């Protein structure tokens, strides 16, 4: 058996010089320090993406993206198709965990200042992927076409419509018309299964290539140590094997959640029925949604909600561009302000999510 593998390896090696790749991987090291654990969340997020693509393709074999058939087709997947409930449940859970691990990955990169020069592009592509994750969540939420998702989409797109100037056209563009209808479903379906995955894959490719080219970032406190005191671990195989082990654990957690807390389907959306109580966005939008509630309906001459949206937009842009305004970290100095800002963001998100969840 081993000989066959050896043969295959040699056959490929002869043609594409695998030797170089192995040497390259062998030279890569992952810094070992007390915050090393956070290095794993990027890999975990990648794993969730792979799961989403796989289960998403499986769902596509039965799902029908039209307002007459969507709900019934999901019902069909869950009740008739063998293991259909499991596939859908995994897709729904992995979506949530994906965003959670992307949050963790983003904040750990932020606090380690791993975005600093020369890794600005890695940060930007990562942030764009994060925004896309939210887009995946929003568009995927409508696809089962149930009452909750119908009204959540209505409210969500209406909020987008409050953005000055571009809001109106943006709302019509997302909805595929003036109201949330079957046209909205077709559109979000297209975004969810074709447009977003395409763009995401390109961004992911760039992100991964950059990480391979530049190696893994060393936190400031680590890079200041003399070379003899730097503890490292080879990327291949040590780090990779640990990452794979974590993937296995994650897969188990996912399976347990999907089996014991399966995703439910609710009631089919009816545009001519009253909204049910308890309309809430998914948890990852909850903190924004909840904070919008605290804005008075009018601030000076502007609509309170509009002001809130603009503030969140500005905060997002500031966050996206941090490698460019945090010059101190790029010079290898401590930047306490960035730490406090990040801490504030984490606490703000946790508290408001909690408040939104309670209400």
């Amino acid at each position, binding site marked *: 058996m081993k000989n066959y593998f050896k043969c295959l390896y040699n056959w490929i090696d002869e043609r594409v010089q695998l030797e170089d790749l192995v040497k390259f991987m062998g030279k890569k090291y992952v810094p070992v320090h007390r915050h090393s654990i956070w290095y794993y969340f990027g890999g975990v997020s990648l794993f969730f993406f792979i799961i989403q693509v796989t289960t998403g393709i499986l769902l596509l074999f039965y799902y029908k993206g039209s307002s007459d058939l969507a709900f019934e087709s999901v019902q069909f997947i869950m009740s008739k198709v063998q293991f259909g409930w499991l596939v859908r449940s995994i897709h729904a859970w992995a979506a949530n965990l994906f965003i959670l691990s992307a949050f963790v990955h983003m904040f750990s990169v932020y606090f380690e200042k791993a975005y600093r020069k020369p890794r600005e592009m890695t940060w930007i592509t990562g942030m764009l992927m994060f925004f896309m994750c939210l887009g995946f969540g929003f568009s995927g939420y409508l696809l089962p076409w149930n009452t909750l998702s119908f*009204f959540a989409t*209505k*409210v969500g797109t*209406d*909020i987008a419509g409050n953005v000055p100037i571009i809001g109106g056209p943006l709302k*019509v*563009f997302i*909805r*595929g*018309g003036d*109201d949330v*209808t079957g*046209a909205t479903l077709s559109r979000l379906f297209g975004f969810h299964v074709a447009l977003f995955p395409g763009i995401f894959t390109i961004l992911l490719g760039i992100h991964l290539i950059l990480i391979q080219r530049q190696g893994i970032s060393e936190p400031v406190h680590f890079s200041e140590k003399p070379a003899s005191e730097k503890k490292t671990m080879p990327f291949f195989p040590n780090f990779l094997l640990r990452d794979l082990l974590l993937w296995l654990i994650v897969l188990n957690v996912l399976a347990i959640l999907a089996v014991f807390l399966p995703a439910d389907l609710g009631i089919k959306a009816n*545009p*001519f*029925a*009253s*909204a*049910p*109580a*308890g*309309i809430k966005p998914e948890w990852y939008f909850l903190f924004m949604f909840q904070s919008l*509630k605290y804005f008075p*309906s009018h601030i000076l001459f502007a*609509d309170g909600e509009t002001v809130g949206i603009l503030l969140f937009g500005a905060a997002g842009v500031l966050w996206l561009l941090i490698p460019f305004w945090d010059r101190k970290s790029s010079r290898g100095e401590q930047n306490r302000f960035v730490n406090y800002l990040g801490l504030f963001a984490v606490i703000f998100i946790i508290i408001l999510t909690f408040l939104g969840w309670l209400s």
Partner: protein
Amino acid sequence: MDNVQGKPDLKNRRDFLKYLLSAGVLGFAASVIYPVLSYLKPPKQSEVEVTSVSAGKLSDFPKDSGKIIRFGNKPVLVVYSADGNLHALSAECTHLGCTVQFRKDLDLIWCACHNGKYDLNGRNISGPPPRPLTPFKVIVKAGEIFISKMA
């Protein structure tokens, strides 16, 4: 490069070609982008102009209740109040567009999304809604309820 500088008309010719090429690229890009953008803009569906819609027989409508009817492709809430008055209002909450409902226990119109409240005339009385609900005209003709747009 040297011999280009030496021959000015050759340099001009090269510049000219450069302009031509960039104009061509721009034109090409525009001729691709414009149709794509237009394609993405949802076409205006010619809505059948509805002027009046039946909301069923008055005798089938219990007092102190409300129901949603379709007015074209918009929902309209019709409330038959306990004191025998009929109200018809747009059912789209003025806050973020959820569909409102009549709450018997509160004798109010209520939006479940963010706890917005309106009185039976559609005035926004509490919660986030910024404006009142648009009223519709109600007439009862031969025992049947008709809803129409306010003139």
